[in-house]
C-alpha cells in the first residue's frame, strides 16, 4: 500500500487560481513517469511536470494524473469528478491516471456525504481543467510564434490552424513556465462540445473490481500488522466491571489483550465505544480469542431503552401540540371547518447501514510519534482530526490514506473505528489492522432514528385541501454527542417536512422532544426517509378522499408554477447548505418529473388482480425525483416487477452512474419497506447478522428499473440519496393498490 506514496513528490508551490477553492493548497502533487514515447512532438522532458493546481499534473511523457479527492463508496464519484476536469482539459481518458488523495484541507471539502460532491465541485473542476487547457494552448502558440486564438486543444494535443500539433507531454514543461492566465481569459466549453460530461463512462476501477484486485479498507496489507477485534458492551457506551482473558490468551496466535475505556454518555461520533481489545496474528485467532473472553459488563445510561416502548411513547406525543416549526393560516380552525379530515399515524424503526464491507481500519503509530492510517472513510479530514486528537499528537504527524469503501451509506462518515485502530496501534507498539465483524457492525452502528409521525389533512366542501397538520418526532442526530440535543433540528425537519411544497392555506408542522438513547447517525437520505414515507402515503390517501387520480392530485396540490419562498415560511430554512436563490424549490421542475414518470410508466393502465402501481415524488438534496412502482402480491409475497424514475438533477454529468444510483436506491428502499428493522431491548441491539437484520436480495429487489433523466442545463445536483425517499411511499402506495391495505409502519406487515 505504501507504494502509492513513493511516486508522489512535491513539484513546488504555485499560487495558481489563488482566489478559488482550488488555490488554497499548500503544495502541489505531481507524478513522475518513465518516458518511452518516440514522438518528440507528443512527449518532452520526462522530468518535467505541469501541475497547475492540487488536482492535476501532466508529465513530460504526456500522462495526466488527476486527483480523486472524495471517497468512492459506490456512487462513481472517483470517476465522475476527474472526468469533469478531463473534459475541460481535453485529455484523453485512456491516458489519465487517478490518484486517491490523502485527507488534507488543501483539497477543499472532502466530506463525501450529503450528495453534494458534483454540486460543489462541478464549477471549480471545470475551471481547473479549462485553465490548464488554455496554458497548454498558450505554450503551443509560443512555440509556433502564433496567436493563441489559432490554437485548439483536442484529445491530448494542441493543434494549429495550419495542421501542426504538439502533444501534452511535449508542452508540459513549457506550460509549467507560463504565468497563470487571468480568470477573465478562461473559457469554459460549450456544453455541445463535452466529450465526457453527459456521456457514458465506465468507472475507473471496473476491471480491478471484477478481477478481485481493487483495494478496499479490508484489503490493506502492512508488513507485520496484527489484527485486532474488540468485544464491546452490548449496551453501547457502557463500561466493564471485570474480565478474564486467560482462556483467550491461550488461543494460538493471540498476542495481547487489553481494555479500551468506554466513552461515557453521550457517546459522541468519533470516540471508540471501548471494550476488550484482542490483538492476534490473524483475523481468525483474534475472533476466536474474543469468543473466549469472560466479561462482566457494567450498566450505562441507556439500559432502560426499549425501542418498542419508546416509539409508542413518541407516537403518543405526536397527539399533543408540539413545538411549531412552520405555521400558515389557522390550522385548528381549518380542521374544524373541514368536511373531510384524514388522520394517520406513521412509524419507522431504527435501521442499520450494513455496508457489505464492515468498518475496518489499519493504523501504524510509529516510535517517532507519527501515525499512518489506511481506511475506508467518507470524511478523511474529520478522520485526520479525530486521530490526532485521540492520540494527542500534532495533526501534521497524522496521514490518512483513503482506500476504496465497500459501501458506506453514511456509516463511514464517523471515524470512531479509525480512532480504535490508532489507539490499538499505540498500545501494541506496531501496525494494527482493526476489523469489525458483521456482528459488531449491526450491533454498534450509528442507527437511523426511529420516528413517529401524526398527520391530519382537511378537505373542504369544494374538494379543496385546506389544512395540513404534520407532527414528526424522532431522536435527533445531535443527541449522539450533545446531551441538550433532545429535539429534531430544523435541518432534519427540512428534509421532507418543513419543505412541504403543496399550496395549502393552513399549515402546521410540529415536533417534540425525544432524547437519543443509542448512537444515531445519518443513513442514505436521512430524515427524508421518514418524511417522504408519511407525506407520500398521506398524499395518496388524500387523492382517494378527493376521488382523484394520485398524479393529478399532486399536480393540483402543487398549484401554479413558482419558486417557493420557504425562507419566509420557516425560520432558518435549510436548503441543503445552499442559498435558496441559487437552488430554488421549483414547482415547475417538480411537475416535469411527475409528468415524465406518468408518461413513461404507462400510468393508468389496467393491471391484473394482485398487481398495483403506486406513485410518489420528492425533492431532496436539491434533486427532483418522481417514481412509479409496480408490485405483484401473491399470498403475502411481494414482488416488484417494474420501477420507473424520472430525475432532474441538472446537468447529468455521468448518466450511466446516475442510473446505477437509482437502480440501487430502489433496492435500498425495498429493504427499508419490506424487511429491515433494528430493535433495542434493555439498551442492547437484538439483531446481529443478516439472518435477523434482513436486507433485499436479488429476488426482493425490483426486476427492472427504468431511469428517465431530464435533459437539463441547470446546475448539477447529487444523486446518491435522492432515489430512496420517493421510492418508499411509491412502493407502499402500490401495495395498497394491490391489496387494499394502507401501509403506516415500516417494515410492512401484511395482514
Amino acid at each position: 500500500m505504501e507504494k502509492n506514496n513513493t511516486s508522489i513528490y512535491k513539484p513546488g508551490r504555485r499560487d495558481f487560481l489563488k482566489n478559488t477553492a482550488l488555490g488554497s493548497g499548500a503544495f502541489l502533487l505531481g507524478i513522475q513517469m518513465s518516458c518511452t514515447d518516440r514522438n518528440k512532438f507528443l512527449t518532452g522532458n520526462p522530468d518535467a511536470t505541469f501541475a497547475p493546481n492540487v488536482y492535476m499534473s501532466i508529465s513530460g511523457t504526456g500522462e495526466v494524473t488527476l486527483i480523486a479527492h472524495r471517497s468512492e463508496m459506490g456512487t462513481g464519484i472517483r470517476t465522475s469528478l476527474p472526468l469533469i476536469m478531463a473534459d475541460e482539459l481535453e485529455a484523453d481518458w485512456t491516458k489519465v491516471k487517478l490518484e486517491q488523495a490523502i485527507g488534507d484541507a488543501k483539497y477543499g471539502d472532502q466530506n463525501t456525504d450529503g450528495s453534494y460532491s458534483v454540486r460543489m465541485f462541478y464549477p471549480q473542476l471545470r475551471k481547473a481543467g479549462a485553465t490548464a487547457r488554455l496554458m497548454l494552448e498558450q505554450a503551443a502558440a509560443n512555440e509556433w510564434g502564433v496567436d493563441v486564438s489559432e490554437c485548439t486543444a483536442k484529445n491530448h494535443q494542441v493543434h494549429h490552424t495550419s495542421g501542426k500539433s504538439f502533444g501534452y507531454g511535449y508542452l508540459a514543461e513549457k506550460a509549467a513556465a507560463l504565468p497563470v492566465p487571468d480568470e477573465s481569459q478562461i473559457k469554459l466549453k460549450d456544453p455541445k462540445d463535452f466529450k465526457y460530461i453527459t456521456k457514458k463512462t465506465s468507472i475507473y476501477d471496473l476491471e480491478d473490481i471484477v478481477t478481485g484486485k481493487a483495494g478496499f479498507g479490508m484489503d490493506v496489507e502492512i508488513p507485520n500488522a496484527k489484527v485486532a477485534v474488540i468485544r464491546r458492551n452490548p449496551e453501547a457506551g457502557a463500561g466493564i466491571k471485570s474480565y478474564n482473558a486467560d482462556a483467550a490468551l491461550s488461543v494460538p496466535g493471540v498476542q495481547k489483550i487489553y481494555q479500551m475505556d468506554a466513552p461515557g454518555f453521550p457517546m459522541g461520533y468519533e470516540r471508540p465505544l471501548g471494550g476488550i481489545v484482542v490483538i492476534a496474528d490473524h483475523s481468525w485467532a483474534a475472533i476466536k480469542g474474543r469468543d473466549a473472553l469472560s466479561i462482566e459488563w457494567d450498566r450505562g445510561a441507556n439500559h432502560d431503552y426499549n425501542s418498542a416502548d419508546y416509539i409508542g411513547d413518541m407516537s403518543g406525543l405526536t397527539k399533543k401540540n408540539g413545538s411549531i416549526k412552520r405555521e400558515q393560516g389557522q390550522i385548528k380552525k381549518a380542521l374544524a371547518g373541514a368536511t373531510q379530515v384524514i388522520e394517520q399515524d406513521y412509524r419507522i424503526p431504527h435501521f442499520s447501514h450494513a455496508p457489505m464491507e464492515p468498518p475496518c481500519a489499519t493504523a501504524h503509530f510509529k516510535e517517532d510519534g507519527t501515525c499512518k492510517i489506511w481506511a475506508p472513510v467518507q470524511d478523511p479530514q474529520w478522520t485526520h482530526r479525530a486521530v490526532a486528537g485521540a492520540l494527542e499528537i500534532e495533526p501534521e504527524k497524522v496521514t490518512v490514506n483513503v482506500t476504496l469503501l465497500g459501501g458506506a451509506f453514511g456509516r463511514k462518515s464517523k471515524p470512531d473505528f479509525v480512532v480504535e485502530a490508532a489507539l490499538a496501534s499505540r498500545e501494541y507498539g506496531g501496525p494494527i489492522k482493526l476489523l469489525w465483524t458483521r456482528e459488531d457492525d449491526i450491533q454498534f452502528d450509528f442507527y437511523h432514528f426511529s420516528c413517529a409521525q401524526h398527520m391530519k389533512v382537511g378537505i373542504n366542501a369544494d374538494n379543496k385541501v385546506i389544512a395540513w397538520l404534520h407532527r414528526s418526532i424522532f431522536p435527533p442526530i445531535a443527541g449522539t454527542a450533545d446531551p441538550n440535543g433532545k429535539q429534531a433540528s430544523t435541518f432534519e425537519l427540512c428534509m421532507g417536512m418543513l419543505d412541504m411544497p403543496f399550496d395549502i392555506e393552513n399549515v402546521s408542522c410540529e415536533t417534540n422532544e425525544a432524547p437519543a438513547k443509542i448512537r444515531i447517525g445519518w443513513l442514505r437520505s436521512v430524515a427524508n426517509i421518514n418524511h417522504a414515507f408519511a407525506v407520500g402515503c398521506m398524499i395518496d390517501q388524500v387523492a382517494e378522499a378527493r376521488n382523484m387520480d394520485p398524479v393529478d392530485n399532486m399536480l393540483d396540490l402543487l398549484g401554479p408554477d413558482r419558486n417557493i419562498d420557504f425562507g419566509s415560511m420557516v425560520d432558518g430554512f435549510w436548503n441543503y447548505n445552499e442559498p435558496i436563490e441559487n437552488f430554488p424549490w421549483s414547482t415547475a421542475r417538480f411537475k416535469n418529473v411527475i409528468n415524465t414518470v406518468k408518461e413513461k410508466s404507462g400510468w393508468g393502465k389496467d393491471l391484473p388482480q394482485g398487481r398495483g402501481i403506486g406513485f410518489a415524488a420528492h425533492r431532496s438534496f436539491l434533486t427532483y425525483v418522481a417514481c412509479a412502482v409496480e408490485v405483484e402480491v401473491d399470498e403475502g409475497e411481494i414482488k416488484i416487477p417494474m420501477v420507473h424514475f424520472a430525475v432532474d438533477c441538472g446537468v447529468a454529468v455521468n448518466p450511466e452512474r446516475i442510473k446505477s444510483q437509482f437502480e440501487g436506491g430502489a433496492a435500498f428502499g425495498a429493504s427499508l419497506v419490506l424487511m429491515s428493522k433494528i430493535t433495542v431491548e434493555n439498551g442492547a441491539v437484538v439483531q446481529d447478522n443478516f439472518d435477523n437484520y434482513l436486507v433485499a436480495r436479488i429476488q426482493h429487489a425490483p426486476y427492472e428499473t427504468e431511469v428517465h433523466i431530464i435533459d437539463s442545463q441547470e446546475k448539477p445536483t447529487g444523486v446518491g440519496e435522492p432515489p430512496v425517499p420517493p421510492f418508499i411511499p411509491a412502493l407502499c402506495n402500490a401495495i395498497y393498490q394491490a391489496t387494499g391495505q394502507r401501509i403506516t409502519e415500516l417494515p410492512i406487515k401484511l395482514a
Partner: protein
Amino acid sequence: MASYTLKINNQLHEVEATPDMPLLWVLRDLLGLTGTKYGCGKALCGTCTVHVDGLPMRSCIVTIDGLADKSITTIEGLGDNKLHPVQKAWMEEDVPQCGYCQSGQIMSAVALLESNPNPSDEDIDAAMAGNICRCGTYVRIRRAIKKAAKLS
C-alpha cells in the same frame, strides 16, 4: 497448529493453521489472496464465495481441515490470466457500484452457468439469493448473467 497443503488456482500452497480455521482467513490473512471478501462469517451473504472442486462454497464456513485433495478457485484464478466471460459481461453491463461483494457475486454466477448454461429468471434467483449486494446492483447482475450465458 498443523501443516496443510492446499491447491488454489492450480498452485500448491503450504500453510500452518489450526484445523478449524476457515478458508476465508487462510486465503486472506495467510496467503494474501484478498480478492475473496469477508461479509458476515456465517454463510449469510455470499461475499466470500469461492469454488471448491467447481462448486460454489462460502469460504467463511469451510474449514481448512477438509480441503486436502480439493481444488480451490478464487476470483484471482478465475480467468486463467484473462477475463472470464462472466467478468467480461460484468464489465460490459457496468455492474459494480462499490464493488465489494462482486467477487462473490461473480463466483456464484460462474458456478451457476457451469451447471446451467442457460438459466431462467427463477434459476438466477435461486442461485444468487445467497449473495447480498447493499448497493443494489441486482438488475445488472441478472442482465450480466444472461449476457455471459450468450458469450460463453
